[in-house]
């Protein structure tokens, strides 16, 4: 059952990921954004399979919810359609594909050759309290730093998009 779900979620996630970056039917950013949302959703499914329920929820809430809405919002605001007009640079595409394929190939080969799969068992359970404890004990420092990051982002966004400059 889990395996089947894995195959479904993983396959869909990859498919939607592919459609996000290289949709053969349209190059509309809206489509990309929507497929990205779908990818996020399937990924959160995978997280659930991995018993990372909190993360799965956050994934849906923050990513699919907040971040992607932001994306869509901006897309709508900017009214982007130009990319469709432009030609693909065949050489660039080929080179990009080769580079990415190389990276992927090396990563996959490394993963396969490293032989990490055989020994390990999926063991981590009951993760949300554990996560919370970790976050507020050992990882309090990054947690606080992140707050500063968010503050910076806030200040930055205001600075960058304030309409009038004083």
């Amino acid at each position, binding site marked *: 059952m889990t395996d089947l779900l894995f195959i479904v979620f993983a396959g869909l996630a990859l498919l939607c990921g592919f459609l996000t970056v290289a949709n053969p039917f349209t190059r509309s950013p809206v489509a990309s954004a929507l497929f990205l949302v779908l990818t996020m959703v399937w990924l959160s499914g995978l997280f659930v399979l991995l018993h990372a329920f909190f993360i799965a929820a956050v994934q849906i809430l923050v990513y699919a919810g907040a971040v992607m809405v932001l994306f869509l919002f901006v897309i709508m605001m900017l009214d982007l359609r130009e990319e469709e007009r432009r030609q693909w640079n065949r050489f660039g595409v080929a*080179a990009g594909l080769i580079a990415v394929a*190389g*990276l992927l190939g*090396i*990563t996959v080969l*490394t993963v396969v050759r490293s032989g990490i799969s055989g020994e390990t068992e999926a063991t981590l359970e009951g993760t949300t309290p554990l996560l919370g404890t970790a976050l507020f004990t050992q990882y309090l420092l990054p947690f606080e730093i992140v707050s500063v990051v968010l503050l910076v982002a806030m200040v930055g966004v205001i600075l960058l998009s304030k309409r009038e400059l004083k």
Partner: protein
Amino acid sequence: MKPETLAWIILVLPLLSAAVITLFTRRQPGLSARISVGAVALAFVASILLVLGYGRLHLGPGEMLLTSVSWLEVGGLSVDLGLRLDAMSNLMLLMVTGVGLMIHLYSRGYMEGDPGYSRFFASLSLFMFSMLGIVLAANFVMMFLFWELVGVSSYLLIGFWHERASAADAAKKAFLTNRLGDFGFLLGIIMVWSALGTVDFLDIQRALTVNPAALGVGASLAGVLIFLGAMGKSAQFPLHVWLPDAMEGPTPVSALIHAATMVAAGVYMLARSFVVFNVPSAWPGGLDFLHGVTALDVIAWIGGVTSLLAALMAVQQSDIKRILAYSTLSQLGYMVMAVGCAKPDAGMFHLLTHAFFKALLFLGAGSIIHALHHEQNIWKMGGLKSRLPVTYWTFLVGTLALCGVPPFSGFYSKDGILAAAETRPLLFALGLLVAGLTAFYMFRLVFVALRGVPRDAQVTHAHEPGPTMLWPLRLLALASVLAGFWGMEGVLQGVFGRATHDSHGGWLATALAPFGHAPLAAMMGLFATGFGFALAWSLYGSGPAHDPLPEKLGVVARWMRDKFYFDELYAVLIRVTHDALAGLADWADRWLVAGFLVRGTHGTMDVFGRVLRLVQTGNLQTYAFAAALGLAVVMWLMLM
């Protein structure tokens, strides 16, 4: 005063004079001349005192006085600033200071009114200093040092009228040709030092007396190299080309430097270091084919060839000073030949006598030139006998001495050389031929320039110069006559440790001695001279307006006149060697090293930079791609 102190004084006086004139009295020509003349006069007096004092020391033959200060002391090389006083250097001292004094006196009149009067005397003093240094040098390095200084002072004097292109060129040529010789000289010195560990003449002599093979395999090569120095300074073939050109200098200079003293330095050096040449033949590997040839053989033949070539060239010259210059060349060849024939005493003897009569001849020529307002072409002279009587007669004395007519001094010294060559038939014949040629061209000069009728209007206005110029002529003429009997020969033979023949038989016996101990040489020499004179008489006695010889000899005469094209040959040689190499090096430097290598690297870097920064397209996807590709490559290299 001790003789050593006197010797130092003699050496330093002219230097002081040069320094004082250069630094202080440049603007007072009269004073400069007086200082210079005074210095050399004092030196002359000191030389006489020195010789007298030296005589009282009663040193045996081969013994000498030495005085030295350490000049340089590094490792195995120890060079003293040393003076060596023996019979030979004493004689040379007398000769150099004596002739020098005459010429200084003469110059006072001759150079009157020249804007560079002070400079002239400063240069003369410098020259005297250097020459005396050579004479007194006790070791090779010292000699080389003064040797070069002599070269410089001769450069300054030849190029005295440096605004004249020909004079400047002649000076340059003289110096450079001498440099070629010095190159060999220095290497020779180094070889001797390397073998014997010393550069001191006395030490070398001792070492070679104990073991004549001490110089090792390079013995003959070292000898030849050292001789190369003499070839330069004494203008031996093939380095003879500078001497005739050097006549561009003022005539007293020609007399002093290029007749009496400087050119004699080569011969003096050969005599001084004779012991180095007089060793068994030994050549380093690669030069084995010269096996059996000694350095002396080379010297003798070079001397012989020089004397013949020069005499031939002299036959067809029309410039009075050039004729004398070639004559000097020829006589120097004679002297060198004598050294080569293992009779350095004979060479030295001729050197001394030659100094007097050649100086006399040059001064006589100077007097003529002076009288004719710097006209030097003998075909524009003639009939000077009556107008310049003192000059004429003294000139005649010089000619006779040069030709070797008894009882003039040249006879004795030349006889010694011919006698030395007796054992080598070829050289002997050569010597006789030269003797005949000498008489021919000298009397040609006398007949054309001095006797006969004036060929140029200017001659009619000619008159004798003042006493400052005439007295030196008279004194030198006296010396030219007397030098032969003086007993110098015996003294010199003593220096080289050979038995002196009977010099106790009164003046007549001395005067006729040559006929006694080398009758063949004396008779044949006289005969050759007479033949030459007769030939000259027949051709020029009648006072022709043009030289009849070119018609008779045709192309040969032209060759003689054009000095057998040595100058042209050297011009070509220099062009194909050094100038070509310089051009090549310059080209390589400009295009290969500075251009291709340096500018090329510079340009390549620049191009690299310009090309490489095209990576920065400004498009951030290119950057992302570059990063991804770079990372992929790195991963591939590190993990695969």
